[in-house]
């Protein structure tokens, strides 16, 4: 009785919630594998858009009358336009962005738009930059821009054709606006026309709108997931409860690479609710009727670990090793002229060594995934960021074909890179658990926060060693730059495209391709192995390279008596987009105007993921630490699709980057991670968030990334402001390691 009431309350709360509503009714009703299976490779519209199935969607079992126009657009009899996002939305707003593209070309009304996630199917839903279905590298908008517009335009043409047939008028007499189709006399909604329209011929090359006719692109419409999230609706994997579902929590080796040799499960099994303890590669899983029972069961579990092959180094040893390596020549990444000679003959030489710590992503929703395996078919529920990789990994473990693994992508409570894993680490874990249990009932794997903080897949620790020689007039004579750290791409499926001649581009991006004019420039790399697996972390290599480049350029300007903005501009003559954001940020920040006593400005500009971002930070010193009051940001990410979402992503990137440079580091002692939770792995808190102003450069260039590019300039902008206050050039992060004193 009470449970019914609660269920009723949840339903009432989410009554207006597109996500929850459609999730409840559509989870199983559309089988998009059918779509591609029916058409083979599919009739191709343009380069990107596979055609709809020739089978009328309305006839498909369980499709409840929905009209499937193509793999991206479905229109329901209730007049909703469902846009299937091939990309995960983990907060970055991609699902809304892709729906915007469809709404634009379809001339839909925003109130009828619904965002859902596409199933796993690389043939139909691959990321054109990855080759697999996946989200990352701030590529979602860039690689979907034409595809989703064409999907909307094709659906619109089919709606018009259906109306023309029904009303016996020429299609050219029909107009569509805000979800209404009319010839001036007759009028119909999309929902009314959808069933007939979906049977119309699929146009091979639907006309796309001219930019001057855009009604959605370039304007800000609210996120389609906002209402459900505000209503606390169950949209996350963590919230899914399936009949018969159990929960698994895993005991993993305290040292990376340790293996369980002996397991005493007696005490764990004595915990009420614990049903099974199973050993899987890399750990021992406790399976229970509830999450708390699984956690308690794991606490009670006794495992002996074999550390023979485990990583036993701590970060202190690792840093010392990297520092020693940085004194030796590495793999050449770039060599212009003779840097050593130029530096030897220079008037002034700056030598700088930087140390960047391991960082955990720590998304608010701890990692999780649900897997059910019955009658040779598996289903995964997960905030899946590499759907077809997760599918392939699970299928290999379960011994079935990839197409027999359905991936039901859920809204993810953050990721920052952690849910896109080349080896699908936590999906592999749940597949191993279900396989070991031999159950046909679903099991949810839950990572605790401690598992997340201690679990590896970190932004790798990096050391940079740089020597810069300056000429008598303060110009750069030569620049020698060595980078030491783990390669993120080594050993992954992305190695082929990311590693060339032994150089992982993500280790050096932002240095070797600097826009600044540097004569006699040498960049070298030492790629190292370490037991803690590395992973991309919001803005990847730019997390450290932008810091090194932008603090050094700043230091050179200051030491040679030049204005940091003017000095940069003087070296960016061939890079107008860098220069434009730098000028705009400086202007909006009042660069050069007086500040209150004790406040200093710092600036940085950096390109990442083909977007250009400049930031000016205003900083004070409070109790020996940096307090950032304000950040003024200018961004050029090509044609802005949803300006407010661009602003939101940059605000978020600034907060994410600021928390890291102020506080965050993962350290290890004798191979064991020292941090456990948000108490010792500190991130940005509410009272530390600066005022952020974001200015978007108008552009008609193709849209580029925005999820990540707000992060890289933040650290150096703040560091440069600190140097202005204290004279300290901070070269080991986070800032919390240093006592700052205003000079």
């Amino acid at each position, binding site marked *: 009785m009470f449970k019914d009431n609660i269920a009723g309350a949840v339903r009432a709360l989410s009554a207006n919630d597109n996500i929850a509503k459609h999730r409840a009714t559509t989870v199983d009703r559309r089988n998009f594998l059918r779509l591609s299976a029916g058409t083979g490779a599919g009739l191709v519209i343009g380069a990107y858009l596979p055609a709809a199935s020739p089978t009328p969607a309305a006839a498909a079992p369980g499709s409840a009358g929905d009209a499937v126009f193509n793999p991206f657009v479905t229109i329901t009899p209730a007049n909703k336009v469902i846009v299937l996002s091939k990309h995960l939305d983990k907060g970055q707003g991609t699902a809304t962005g892709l729906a915007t593209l469809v709404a634009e070309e379809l001339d839909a009304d925003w109130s009828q738009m619904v965002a859902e996630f596409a199933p796993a199917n690389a043939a139909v839903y691959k990321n054109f930059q990855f080759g697999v279905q996946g989200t990352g590298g701030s590529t979602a908008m860039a690689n979907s821009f034409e595809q989703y517009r064409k999907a909307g335009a094709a659906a619109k043409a089919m709606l018009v054709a259906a109306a023309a047939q029904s009303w016996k008028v020429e299609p050219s007499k029909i107009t569509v606006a805000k979800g209404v189709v009319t010839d001036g006399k007759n009028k119909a909604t999309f929902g009314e026309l959808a069933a007939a329209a979906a049977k119309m011929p699929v146009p091979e090359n639907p006309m796309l709108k001219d930019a001057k006719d855009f009604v959605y692109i370039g304007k800000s419409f609210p996120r389609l997931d906002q209402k459900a999230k505000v209503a606390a609706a169950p*949209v996350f994997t963590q919230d899914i409860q399936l009949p018969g579902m159990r929960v698994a929590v895993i005991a993993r080796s305290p040292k990376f690479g340790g293996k369980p040799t002996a397991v005493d499960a007696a005490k764990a099994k004595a915990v009420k609710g614990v049903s099974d303890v199973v050993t899987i590669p890399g750990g021992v899983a406790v399976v229970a009727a509830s999450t708390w029972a699984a956690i308690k069961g794991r606490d009670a579990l006794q495992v002996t670990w074999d550390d023979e092959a485990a990583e036993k180094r701590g970060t202190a040893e690792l840093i010392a090793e990297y520092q020693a390596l940085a004194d030796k020549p590495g793999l050449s990444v770039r060599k212009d002229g003779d840097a050593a000679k130029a530096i030897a003959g220079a008037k002034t030489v700056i030598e700088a060594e930087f140390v960047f710590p391991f960082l955990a992503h720590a998304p*608010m929703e701890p990692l999780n995934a649900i897997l059910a395996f019955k009658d040779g078919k598996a289903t995964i529920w997960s905030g899946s960021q590499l759907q077809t990789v997760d599918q392939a990994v699970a299928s290999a473990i379960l011994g079935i074909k990839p197409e027999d693994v359905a991936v039901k992508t859920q809204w993810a409570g953050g990721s920052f890179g952690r849910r896109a894993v080349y080896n699908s680490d936590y999906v592999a874990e749940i597949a191993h658990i279900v396989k070991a249990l031999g159950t046909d009932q679903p099991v949810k794997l839950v990572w605790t926060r401690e598992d997340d903080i201690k679990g590896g897949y970190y932004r790798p620790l990096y050391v940079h060693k740089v020597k810069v020689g300056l000429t008598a007039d303060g110009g750069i004579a030569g620049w020698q730059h060595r980078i030491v750290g783990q390669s993120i791409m080594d050993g992954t499926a992305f190695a082929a495209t990311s590693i060339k001649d032994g150089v992982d581009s993500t280790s050096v991006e932002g240095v070797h391709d600097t826009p600044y004019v540097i004569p006699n420039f040498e960049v070298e790399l030492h790629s190292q192995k370490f037991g803690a697996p590395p992973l991309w972390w919001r803005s990847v290599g730019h997390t450290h390279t932008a810091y090194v480049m932008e603090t050094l350029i700043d230091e050179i300007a200051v030491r040679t008596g030049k204005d940091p903005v003017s000095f940069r501009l003087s070296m960016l003559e061939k890079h107008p987009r860098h220069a434009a954001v730098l000028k705009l940020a400086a202007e909006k920040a009042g660069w050069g105007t007086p500040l209150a006593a004790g406040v200093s400005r710092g600036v940085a500009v950096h390109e990442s993921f083909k977007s250009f971002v400049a930031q000016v930070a205003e900083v004070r010193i409070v109790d020996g630490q940096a307090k950032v009051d304000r950040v003024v940001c200018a961004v050029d990410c090509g044609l802005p699709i949803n300006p407010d979402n661009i602003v939101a992503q940059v*605000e978020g990137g600034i907060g994410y980057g600021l928390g890291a440079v102020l506080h965050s580091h993962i350290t290890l002692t004798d191979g064991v991670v020292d941090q456990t939770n*948000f108490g010792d792995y500190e991130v940005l808190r509410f009272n530390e968030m600066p005022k*952020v102003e974001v200015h978007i450069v108008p552009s008609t260039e193709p849209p580029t990334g925005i999820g990540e590019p707000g992060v890289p300039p933040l650290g150096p902008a703040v560091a440069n402001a600190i140097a202005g206050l204290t004279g300290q050039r901070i070269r080991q992060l986070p800032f919390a390691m240093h006592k700052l004193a205003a000079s």
Partner: protein
Amino acid sequence: MKLSINGRDIEVAADPDTPLLWVVRDELGLTGAKFGCGQALCGACTMYADDTPIRACVTPIESVAGQKITTPEGLEGRIAEAVRAAWEKHDVAQCGYCQPGQIMAAVALLNGKPVPTDADIDEAMTGNLCRCATYGRIRTAILTASETLKG
């Protein structure tokens, strides 16, 4: 034992030392309050016990017997409506996972201080983490809700 949740009395089967969060999420199926840290460090699990925000992830159910528990699903009234409307107006949520807890904290703040200062907002909200760093919009939305409630 018996709990009062969102205005209803209910008998739960869990042991008395079980954290309230897991009873509410796993046993009652109310998933609005989130699991974020399990150590009262992030605020994602915020509920009220007699109108006071608590961290349900470290609150054994035996300690709240006899108190009125409110979860995000049961949060209602004028202030809650104003806060939710302000959240939507400013498109606050990104990933959204922390937002039920943020909204619980914001409503509690406005309940005690209808016109909060920036310092009041800092104090009320600093225990609630948001990794998407929507903090600026949360502040704006709280001020908007406060304005709405004045009128």
